[in-house]
């Protein structure tokens, strides 16, 4: 009954608006099967909300045609999975069991949608590990291999050419990023210039985390600042709060050619994002937690990038911090970035 009236209202609104992206059949399937399958469960808070949403969707179907997570074309199984995904918790509050369930769902959805089998990891931080990063401005020549390796590794949106890393070309004697060229496109290195890379600095005291109204971003125990892409509501307050331009927003649906998708993923790292959510560098959490270097470190042809465990006294990063001339950006803000610049 309800499903029918929803369908009717929707069709009417859509014909009125000329917005006709949705597959009517898929929606019908979704409401007939997807809802029925979940609705018979005993009522808890979350289930009550589900019922409420069904009721509300009659009223909101005007905008629902595009903003709902359920309305893209697909079969009923997909609709069912999306429906369950919509009501899941903030990743931090999930039990190990719930994490496993959502990962299974996400992997299944990937299979149904793009026919790819991705592996989504949920590996936690290891005790006694605090990640840090150092950037050698004497060595960097501005080749930007790090930038492209990052985009590939992290499934960054190709259509907007999203970059987590930016390389600034600085004139010798200059220290101000504002007067540097952050968008150069010519042969490098250029005489009389040096190069400086920026990305998320994974502050120990991250202002972006404080401001998030829904707790969708936080600092993990190994010091990596992460985002729960499925929890972010897209208010962009964190982007305003970041003093280092470390965050990127998905203004449109991100596009990655299916053949180029990196299938080794982490829930908090490079898994596929959607439009309207924030994302950022995670020190390649899917790699670093497995004991590997981030893609940018691996790709750097000059060895300008150093990554490691700050708590390990024998690590290279500790050697750099203890023996080189190091500095950090905007230290006066008290954010304590775990990203140091140094010279040979």
């Amino acid at each position: 009954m309800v499903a029918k009236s929803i369908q009717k209202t929707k069709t009417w609104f859509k014909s009125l608006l000329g917005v006709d992206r949705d597959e009517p059949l898929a929606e019908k399937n979704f409401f007939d099967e997807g809802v029925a399958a979940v609705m018979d469960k005993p009522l808890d808070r979350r289930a009550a909300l589900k019922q409420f949403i069904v009721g509300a969707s009659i009223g909101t179907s005007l905008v629902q045609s595009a903003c709902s997570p359920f309305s893209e074309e697909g079969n009923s199984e997909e609709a069912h999975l999306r429906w369950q995904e919509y009501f899941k918790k903030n990743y931090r509050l999930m039990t190990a069991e719930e994490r496993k369930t959502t990962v299974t769902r996400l992997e299944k959805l990937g299979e149904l949608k793009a026919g790819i089998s991705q592996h989504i990891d949920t590996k936690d931080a290891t005790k006694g590990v605090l990640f840090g990063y150092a950037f050698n401005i004497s060595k960097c020549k501005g080749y930007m291999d790090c930038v492209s390796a990052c985009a590939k590794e992290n499934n960054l949106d190709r259509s907007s050419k999203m970059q987590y890393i930016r390389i600034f070309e600085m004139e010798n004697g200059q220290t101000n990023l504002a007067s540097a060229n952050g968008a150069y496109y010519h042969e490098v290195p250029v005489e009389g210039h040096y190069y400086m890379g920026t990305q998320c600095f994974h502050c120990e005291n991250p202002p972006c985390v404080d401001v998030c109204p829904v707790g969708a971003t936080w600092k993990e125990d190994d010091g990596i600042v992460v985002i729960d892409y499925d929890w972010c509501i897209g208010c962009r307050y964190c982007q305003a709060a970041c003093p280092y331009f470390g965050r990127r927003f998905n203004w449109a649906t991100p596009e990655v050619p299916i053949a180029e998708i990196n299938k080794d993923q982490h829930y908090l790292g490079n898994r596929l994002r959607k439009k309207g959510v924030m994302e950022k560098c995670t020190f390649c959490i899917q790699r670093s937690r497995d004991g590997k270097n981030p893609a940018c470190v691996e790709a750097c042809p000059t060895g300008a990038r150093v990554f490691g465990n700050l708590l390990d006294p024998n690590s290279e990063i500790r050697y750099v911090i203890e023996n080189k001339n190091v500095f950090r950006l905007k230290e006066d803000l008290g954010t304590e970035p775990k990203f140091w610049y140094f010279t040979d």
Partner: protein
Amino acid sequence: MRKTNALIQFFKDAIATAASGTVKYHLWMGCLTFLMILGTYAYSIQVRDGLVVTGMSDHISWGIYISNFTFLVGLAAAAVMLVLPSYILHDVDFHKAVLIGEGIAVAALFMCLAFVTVDLGGPHRAWHLIPKLGFFNWPASMLTWDVIVLNGYLLLNLAIPFYILFKHYRGQKPEPKKYLPFVVLSVFWAVGIHLVTAFLYAGLPARPFWHNALLGPRFLASAFAAGPAFIILVLGIIHSQTSYQIRDSIFKKLALITTVAAQINLIMLASELFVEFYQPTHHAESATYLFFGLGEHKGLVPWIWTAISLNLFATLALTLHKVRNQKIWLYLLCFLLFIAIWIEKGMGMVVPGFVPGPLGDVVDYSPSWVEICVTLGIWAMGMFLLSGLVKVAIAVETRQMALPTTH
């Protein structure tokens, strides 16, 4: 039981009252409806394609939506200017106008909430904000404070006038004991909503232009100029279009409030300009961008100089008693002041915070047609709501709408 029936009857009558009126009224509401439909259409496109259809980018990540939100919080807060003397100081003069002021607050708050919602990348995930059900990052995030104070203020401003109107509707006298405590609370609350909204910005050391202790007080001063200015305009329309007569003394008092607040606002502006430009530092670059442009990027220069000249002219003219006491001048000056503060506190406050970016990027912003249509739609919604609320309030107060006496 009798109360429930009266309540149902009240809402029935209220809808009937709001839906009937002169040809002029219907024409006005029709135009607003058209704008709302236009806004909804534009929003449907934004929802379909994402915020990419706006003029915003990673560099300037808040635009005209959040600008309007900020301005309207001020408008809502300004209702307090009427509440204070009317209820607490028993200023009988103000009593008539106060219901209108609270109606303006309600309409402004609905617009605020709408502007925040259309700015979200995932509006359908907004339930994550509901405490317990979602994850409410309180007290760390100032945005959660804003959610609390705005919704609380909305409840107060719905409840107080409703109580009074419903009593009058039934031909009874409202009992001060029952509503005065809430009135007092709403006075403090009004200051709170605007300070908290200022703290949203002022709490970000990453953006030197906003990270400024004067931001909060300046928000209040400009709100208490733009708010009463708007109320004067609304009362002017009511006075000329309906049988509900507003006495001259009310206009005079409101005009005085507007003038003093506008003067204080100018003093604060001068103080800000002095600090920014006497010994310009890196932190003055945003102000330089706003007033003079940086290099070839001059996106906000025409806006801000329009605002400054209107503001100066209106404030100076309002300061002259002879000018201020002439209705036609008063209306014109209030309108100019309203526009000036809308620019100054909206686009003129939000956008320069992002320019230059934290790494020195200078990017211009101008709203896209989608943003403009959505913005118009939301303003139309607010005006629609306000017209309906005011119409009902007047009908009750003039006893045109009253509970039929039964035996």
